[in-house]
């Protein structure tokens, strides 16, 4: 299984490190051609405005939705969640529009308001996760097809919609790989269904 990490800007190596430790063969994705070789894609934390502009420049704003609509699992953390959202408030307009969620940029505040907290994720079981929120977007609304996997103070922070996953926090910054394991399971399930081609045929 080859899991792509979108490597245009952001905390790429942190995701790579988790995937490596889980034996998932991470590949850095910078172009549409790179995308052909992966079975799933992580859009990392970083600056959504920067990543979005570079995606457009290299045709990934079209290539990623095309693969995702064919069933390729995608997981977005923080900036990645903003890029996956159908509706975005504050700053640049939405880009990939793949998930039925509304997010608001930097709505938890500026860097001095960034925080970490213990987060119960029922789907992952105990103990709680240490969740790190850095200039995080607020997930303001989620459509009926969106499953809320975890909430903090009444706001969803980890959501799944079919083969798409998004979190407003950064599991890649803590030594707890449960969210990445969940995403790998989603990729395996997609491969079993024969979706997410062309990458998944090789194994």
């Amino acid at each position: 299984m080859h899991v792509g990490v979108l490597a245009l800007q952001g905390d790429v190596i942190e995701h790579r490190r988790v995937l490596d430790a889980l034996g998932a063969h991470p590949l850095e994705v910078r172009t549409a051609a790179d995308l052909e070789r992966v079975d799933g894609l992580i859009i990392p934390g970083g600056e959504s405005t920067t990543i979005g502009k570079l995606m457009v420049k290299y045709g990934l704003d079209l290539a990623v939705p095309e693969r995702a609509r064919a069933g390729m699992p995608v997981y977005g953390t923080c900036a990645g969640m903003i890029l996956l959202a159908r509706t975005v408030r504050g700053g640049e307009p939405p880009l990939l529009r793949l998930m039925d969620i509304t997010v608001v940029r930097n709505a938890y505040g500026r860097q001095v308001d960034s925080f970490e907290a213990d987060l119960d994720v029922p789907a992952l079981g105990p103990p709680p996760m240490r969740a790190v929120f850095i200039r995080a977007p607020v997930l303001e609304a989620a459509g009926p097809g969106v499953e809320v996997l975890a909430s903090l103070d009444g706001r969803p922070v980890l959501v799944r919609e079919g083969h798409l996953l998004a979190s407003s926090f950064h599991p890649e910054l803590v030594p707890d790989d449960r969210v990445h394991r969940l995403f790998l399971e989603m990729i395996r399930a997609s491969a079993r269904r024969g979706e997410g081609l062309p990458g998944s045929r090789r194994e």
Partner: protein
Amino acid sequence: MADVGTVKLKRGLAQMLKGGVIMDVTTAEQAKIAEDAGACAVMALERVPADIRAEGGVARMADPLKVKEIMEAVTIPVMAKVRIGHFVEAQVLEALGIDFIDESEVLTPADERYHINKHLFKVPFVCGCRDLGEALRRIGEGAAMIRTKGEAGTGNVVEAVRHMRAVMDGIRQLQATPEEELMTVAKELGAPYELVLETRTLGRLPVVNFSAGGIATPADAALMMQLGADGNFVGSGIFKSKDPAKRARAIVEATTHYNDPDVIARVSEGIGEPMKGLDVRKLAEGELLQTRGW
């Protein structure tokens, strides 16, 4: 039990900036140009280093009004500089809600012996260094991010290269050093033993390390990435060039695709004159900014 201002949060923001370009800006309009070009953050300044160098006088923290205008103009993080040791300028910027503080040799130092105790702040700090010892001293004081100094405002990449190589060589030497020699190495580096040990184990600095001070072209930006930088600060190089928006976009692309010469060639085409630049060897000792910091 939410915690704020932790080491993880401060270093974490720097981790999110990796692979990106942080651009010096002096107005809200420039900040918008930088954001539109794909900057991952902007540095709010009164004057860019080339002008500080040309005009002389005491260079201080920017006017809070200017900083606020820039913060309102963009959604990307906003950084601002304080003088070395000037912890009240840092308190002011923290009160404004700035995202990152640069305790910078580009401004006139306020203290010629001590840097700011950066552990006391919720907001993260970035500091300059010329070698591994200086980097680890700053991290010991609480810096959440490091940048190699280069020589700001020259448009000449030679010092940036020298300092990045010095840091990388320092790390490579540590990795070849047996553990029983590390205390003596720490003494010679003038750096905390624990950070020396951690750097040796990680094979890199414990925090993100950007390049700075003289980057003027897309090829300069890619050079610094290939030498091991996690990203680039570009100061005078953008807004002192003929076509800032074009050059800014090209430097962003070259930083992302630093290992792809075809991309670097393409983005370097026809982007107008770079800033003129200075021969660092012709600068008098007193004109060097990089020697500030202790």
